[in-house]
């Protein structure tokens, strides 16, 4: 074979060169001092490089990193280890593989995906009705009448364009950090509610069941302003007064709106947060897909005050307990509160039978006068559902906002309060 002799000479040299490359490669490679495992014996090599410490329920030496953040826990090479890694494991797009793993919270991702906070069906349905795009009548579940449906179909219309541009950032499918500023702090799937900052040394945020009011009011601060009224905040006219040294001295919300302090809700004063009353079947869904809020909400005043501790749908309220014939409420922080029963004379009066509790006990609600919305077809605006800027810019106006005694109206046979928005 011609060239055989040349091959004979070249091969040993190549082999030598290869050995040098091998030595160099090994020298540059990072190795671990041991094989890291969790308390159950599962191998978790992420722990070799990462020092983050989440909270006790998801402790690093019990859960590790890869059950949530995926990736490859058997590797130490950065590129191989980070293949398939997920920054926010709670994003609904991956939640089934992370939070919703069979050994962790398997039923929750499917429930949450059907909940109103993920689908926004009520907002979309109502908007389309008001704008005449769908007929009056019983609300129906439609494939495109949800946030996910709009994301996947790209369907738009006047009402849907309004939704996409002004309402489309308040839902659980929003990727956390997708947009700038306060918009980027919303969304993220499970972490939209359950995540709070951790200690600085821990280098990792913390998941909690004790959801602070702040997490809810990131989104629940528009329309009826429930999140604001509950905390005793009144959205003032935007004048920003008092002016202090030439600067606006009024308190502001994250998005820049000015607020004034008014007496808060009694429950807020007592230290209760939204999640103390609102059951998980309301917030995370009960497995059924609803179109409107009133179908999903099940907490009532009567459940705790004068009732048996059961919601409108018959589910027990977790915090309610009975001790020595008295009804008490234990909040998420562990504090126990007495549950005042309804006034036997006024609340139980024959002529007040049709009244809901709010009809008397809600002293003031936001009244938004002169509500207008305008669409400028020549300008572009960010569609928060698709993430792209499209033609048509919307802006909402009002003449002024007041906090006043609410208007009463009828819902079925009950007399309830009416709040605009």
């Amino acid at each position, binding site marked *: 074979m011609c060239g055989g002799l040349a091959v004979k000479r070249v091969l040993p040299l190549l082999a030598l060169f290869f050995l040098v490359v091998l030595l160099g490669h090994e020298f540059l490679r990072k190795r671990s001092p041991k094989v890291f495992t969790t308390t159950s014996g599962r191998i978790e090599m992420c722990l070799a490089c990462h020092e983050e410490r989440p909270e006790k329920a998801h402790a690093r030496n019990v859960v590790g990193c890869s059950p949530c953040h995926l990736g490859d826990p058997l590797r130490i090479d950065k590129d191989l280890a980070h293949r398939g890694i997920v920054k926010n494991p709670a994003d609904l797009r991956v939640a*089934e593989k992370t939070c*919703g793993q*069979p*050994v962790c919270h*398997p*039923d929750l991702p*499917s429930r949450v995906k059907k909940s109103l906070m993920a689908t926004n069906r009520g907002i979309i349905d109502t908007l389309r009705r008001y704008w005449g795009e769908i007929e009056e009548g019983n609300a129906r579940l439609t494939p495109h009448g949800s946030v996910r449906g709009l994301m996947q179909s790209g369907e738009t219309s006047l009402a849907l364009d309004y939704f996409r541009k002004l309402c489309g950032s308040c839902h659980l499918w929003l990727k956390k950090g997708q947009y700038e500023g306060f918009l980027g702090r919303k969304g993220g799937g499970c972490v939209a509610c359950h995540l709070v900052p951790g200690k600085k040394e821990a280098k990792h945020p913390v998941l909690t069941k004790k959801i602070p009011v702040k997490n809810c009011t990131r989104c629940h601060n528009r329309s009826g302003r429930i999140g604001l009224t509950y905390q005793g905040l009144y959205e003032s006219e935007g004048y920003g007064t008092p002016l202090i040294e030439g600067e606006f001295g009024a308190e502001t919300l994250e998005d820049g709106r000015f607020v004034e302090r008014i007496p808060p809700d009694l429950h807020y004063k007592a230290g209760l947060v939204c999640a103390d009353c609102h059951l998980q079947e309301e917030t995370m869904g009960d497995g059924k897909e609803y179109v409107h809020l009133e179908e999903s909400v099940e907490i009532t005043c009567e459940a705790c005050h004068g009732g048996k501790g059961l919601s409108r749908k018959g589910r027990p309220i977790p915090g309610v307990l009975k001790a020595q014939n008295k009804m008490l409420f234990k909040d998420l922080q562990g504090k126990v509160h007495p549950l005042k029963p309804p006034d036997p004379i006024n609340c139980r009066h024959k002529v007040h039978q049709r009244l809901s509790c709010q009809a008397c006990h809600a002293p003031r609600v936001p009244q938004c006068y002169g509500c207008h919305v305008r669409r400028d077809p020549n300008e572009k605006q960010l569609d928060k559902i698709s993430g792209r800027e499209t033609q048509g810019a919307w802006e909402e106006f009002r003449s002024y906002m007041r906090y006043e005694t609410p208007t009463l109206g009828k819902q079925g046979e009950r007399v309830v309060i009416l709040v605009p928005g």
Partner: protein
Amino acid sequence: MFTRRDFLKKLLWTGLAGVGLYTATRFLPRPPRKVLVKEQLKPGQILIKESFFVKMTSKGPVALSRRCPHLGCLLTYASEEKSFVCPCHQSRFDLSGRYLAGPAKRDLFKLPVKKTEGGIIVEVPS
């Protein structure tokens, strides 16, 4: 020519090989593994352990082996479909262990369960 000596030699070697094989194929006896399940289960809840599932039914806790009755692969739990799935050949079983689809053709094996003070004890065959 095949002599008596040759025959005896062959017999000896075969005998030695047979004895060697007999020794090599014995297992050291081990007692069956007992696993204590401490978790309190709600009715209808599925608990996933290393080699079995535990389900709380109206008649008490039931333990189902995670070994697929087809060829022994470890089953996983598909929560959206409410079924157990085998990742090797995609056999499916419902939550009570009954065979639904795939090449397995039999129900999941039930493991003996005993109630005790700290919880329940499940006996896993080695």
